[in-house]
């Protein structure tokens, strides 16, 4: 069984026990809708299914727009409402452009959370739950700088420019570099490469031209992390330090083998599972507390950090435990700090 599958199974079992609740016959039908096909969101599928099983939710279906395109996502969401879904966990195709369709969902009896990426305030979404992407990129870059010995040149490989998180990540990496007073500089940012072909093309071209001049690589999107890890393994260069993102097996193995220093884990499973739980609770009569301890980011003042953790070679075999712990804490926090139930 794949490690990620074990991860999901163990996390689900723990969270279900933690929740300690069994709901029967809920009419909540949750649709988990990413912005398009992407490996990051694959964990949402199991999260939705587990939420149905553990909390008795009516449905928890993962529905993927056929393309990473705003109109496709809007069309799918409209169709899902017509199909009877009443609760939506949405990765916004655009921080503003997705709001009108979410408003339509709400106007027609639905409820929605922005998941893994936020909508820009004011927004009809109840709140946003996701990785504090800026903080994750900042912490990852700090770890990279530490691995580089506090000086040198770094390259930043990141995701879609249309992803609301990308600019936050670019700014955060720059901020971490700026704090070294010039000892570390960002020599190049390559964005819009969160797909295999452009990632292969641009990362390999970059390394072919700059392998001797670059001292560190930070990646803040899934596919560039996998591609860069593979490229460093291929050229056999352990001088260039790298901090990746997410838990793809290629990255984890590269950490174990010493080609990558570490990775910033996100929590997609926890997002889908806890998001489904919260929406079901809200449909069951709970409300969101007025004094809920929201965080804020560049897009919204109602943000919940779904957790991030740095994993290096010493934790490469036990990172599942770390994520499970974060999800468990977050689920408990939802009941205690965010939801008011009679």
């Amino acid at each position, binding site marked *: 069984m794949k490690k990620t599958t074990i991860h999901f199974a163990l996390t689900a079992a723990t969270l279900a026990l933690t929740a300690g609740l069994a709901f029967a016959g809920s009419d909540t039908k949750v649709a988990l809708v990413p912005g398009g096909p992407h490996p990051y969101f694959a964990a949402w599928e199991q999260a939705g299914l587990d939420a149905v099983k553990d909390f008795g939710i009516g449905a928890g279906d993962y*529905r993927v727009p*056929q*393309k990473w395109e*705003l109109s496709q996502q809007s069309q799918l969401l409209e169709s899902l409402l017509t199909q009877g879904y009443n609760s939506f966990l949405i990765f916004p195709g*655009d921080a503003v*452009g*997705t*709001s009108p369709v979410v408003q339509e969902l709400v106007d027609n009896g639905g409820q929605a959370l922005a998941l893994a990426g936020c909508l820009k305030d004011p927004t009809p979404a109840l709140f946003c739950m996701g990785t504090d992407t800026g903080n994750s990129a900042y912490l990852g870059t700090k770890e990279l700088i530490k691995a580089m010995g506090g000086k040198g040149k770094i390259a930043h490989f990141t995701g879609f420019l*249309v992803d609301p998180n990308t600019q936050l990540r670019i700014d955060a990496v720059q901020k971490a570099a700026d704090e070294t007073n010039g000892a570390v500089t960002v020599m190049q940012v390559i964005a*819009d490469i969160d797909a295999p072909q452009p990632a292969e093309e641009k990362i390999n071209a970059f390394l072919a031209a700059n392998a001797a001049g670059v001292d560190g690589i930070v990646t803040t999107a899934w596919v560039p992390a996998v591609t860069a890890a593979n490229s460093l393994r291929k050229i056999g260069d352990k001088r260039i330090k790298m901090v990746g993102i997410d838990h793809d097996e290629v990255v984890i193995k590269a950490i174990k083998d010493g080609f990558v220093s570490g990775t910033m884990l996100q929590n997609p499973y926890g997002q889908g599972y806890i998001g489904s739980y919260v929406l079901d609770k809200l449909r069951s009569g709970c409300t969101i507390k007025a004094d809920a301890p929201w965080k804020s980011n560049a897009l919204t003042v109602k943000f919940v950090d779904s957790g991030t953790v740095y994993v290096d070679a010493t934790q490469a075999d036990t990172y599942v435990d770390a994520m499970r712990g974060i999800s468990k804490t977050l689920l408990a926090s939802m009941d205690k700090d965010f939801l008011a139930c009679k």
Partner: protein
Amino acid sequence: MTPSDITHTSDAMPVAAGRQSLVQRLAFSSEFGLVLLIALAVVIFASTLPGFTSPFSLFTIGRQIGIDTMIGLAMMAVIVTGGLDLSVGAIGVCSAMAFGWMMESAGVPLALGVPLAVLFGAGLGFLNGAIVVRSGVHSFIITLASMSIFFGVMIFLSQAQAFRTMPPEVLGFGKLRFGGLLSALLVFSLVVCAALSALYRFTSLGRQMLAAGANPRAAEISGVRTGRIFIACHMLTGALAAIAGLMITARTGAAVPSMAGHLGQDWLLPAFLAPVLGGTLLSGGRVAVFGTFLGAALVNIITSGLLLMRVGEFWVQAFLGLMLLAAVLTDRARHKLLQRRGMI
């Protein structure tokens, strides 16, 4: 075929059809077949899928039909010449982004911004048309290149950032519905259909477009300046693509660089499907304006029905591809049939 041949024809049937009885003309028209298919699809989906006929469902289907009709009309306007325009998506997005810039950064009033954005689209169409006519290279190659150029320049200038501060009237228009279910975008696209139909049927320019597309040499001999007419067709395509881009902007309340996918390629399938299904001949010289509307309607009704039936989204895309293939083959068969009957 000469321009005078077309003067008295419907937009979908050349003059020879005038000799046919009304029943025959109806039976041979692609519109008739489409109406039947649409009726069949609606009956099946309405009777088997709860929610298909809900006001919200009808509103969203209608809104998408409106947008896809406009995209289809944009391609139809250049198919008339026997050519095509792969850059319709790129032009639409560039125009929408230009509109967004005018609204958000330049402070241009809405009433001026809309026509300027449409003119901008027509200008990009002019570039396409002028290069096609001057170079003599097929529009496929020229517009393949211009698609990348337009989109690339737009991404460079905008830094791929969306324009999100729109006047409230823009989003208001996208959400506007009549009688609780009829989208304003659908109504608007029908108005444009009527205007285009009048252009091809009643104006000299429209008839010259059809004549130049049907047989450029004959048209030239008859005094039609085909080069200018082809450029005008590309400009019309650009203007209609810009309108489609503005309609999507009205729907989302933002001008987003990815609204038509990478390089605007996501528009290509609806752009070809609607006019070809509707009866526009790929070889040029013959348009079906309301057929394009019906083609877009059929595609969207079936797509919505399949989504409601929970057919996987990826299968829907495959189905649309099959539909285009079937439409092209039908187009070939219809072309031969019309030739045999001396109708073209």
